[in-house]
C-alpha cells in the first residue's frame, strides 16, 4: 500500500511566524504536487516538483522535493492570516498517467 504521510495534521500559529509541513513516503514518486483546498471546494494547485532535490519558491512559500523523491516539504515564511487553509500533498508514482496519492492534509490556522 502506497502511503503519503503528511505532518503535522494541525498547525495553529501567530502571524509572522515561520512553519514547515512535511510529506513522507517509502515510495518513490515521479512528481509531487502541493495543493491548497478551501472548505467545500476543489484542490487548487500551488506547485509541482519533479526533480530530486528541486526547490521551488512561490512568494513566501518554498517547496522542496527530496533527493530520493520520497519526501517533500512546504515552508512558509512570515505566515499571514490569508495563508489559513488546508494544504495537501499528492504524489504520482509514474509519468504514465497514474492516479495521485494524497496525504491527509495539514490544516493551518494563522491568527493576527
Amino acid at each position, binding site marked *: 500500500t502506497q502511503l503519503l504521510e503528511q505532518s503535522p495534521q494541525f498547525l495553529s500559529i501567530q502571524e509572522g511566524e515561520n512553519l514547515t509541513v512535511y510529506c513522507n513516503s517509502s515510495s518513490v514518486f515521479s*512528481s509531487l504536487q502541493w495543493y491548497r483546498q478551501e472548505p467545500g471546494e*476543489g484542490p487548487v*494547485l500551488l506547485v509541482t516538483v519533479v526533480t530530486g532535490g528541486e526547490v521551488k519558491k512561490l512568494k513566501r512559500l518554498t517547496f522542496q522535493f527530496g533527493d530520493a523523491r520520497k519526501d517533500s516539504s512546504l515552508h512558509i515564511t512570515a505566515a499571514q492570516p490569508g495563508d489559513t487553509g488546508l494544504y495537501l500533498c*499528492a504524489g504520482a508514482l509514474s*509519468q504514465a*498517467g497514474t*492516479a*495521485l496519492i494524497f*496525504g491527509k492534509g495539514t490544516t493551518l490556522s494563522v491568527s493576527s
Partner: protein
Amino acid sequence: EPEVTQTPSHQVTQMGQEVILRCVPISNHLYFYWYRQILGQKVEFLVSFYNNEISEKSEIFDDQFSVERPDGSNFTLKIRSTKLEDSAMYFCASRRLAGVYFTDTQYFGPGTRLTVL
C-alpha cells in the same frame, strides 16, 4: 485562465437512484480523472480515462460506477444505484499533453457534493 468545471455543485438523491455527475475538462487536456473525498477524509482516486477508455481504476470503482466522454467536451461519472456510503465530494481532474509526454500536473474542478439519503 482555463478551469475544470463541474455540474451540479450539489446533488441530493435517494438511495438506489442513479446519478450522473458532469465535468468539462480544460479544453486541450487529454487525460481525465475522477476522485472522491468523504467528509473529513483524504482525497481518493476512482478512475482515470484516456483515449476513450479507462486507463486505471481503484478498488472503489466497482460495477456500480461508469465513466463516459459522450462528446468532445464533457466527461461524466455515473453511479447506477447509489448507496449511503457514496455520499462524498466528487472531483474531476484533467491533465494536458506536453509534446509527446504528459505533464504530471492535474488540475481539479470545484467538485460536486453528492448526498445520498
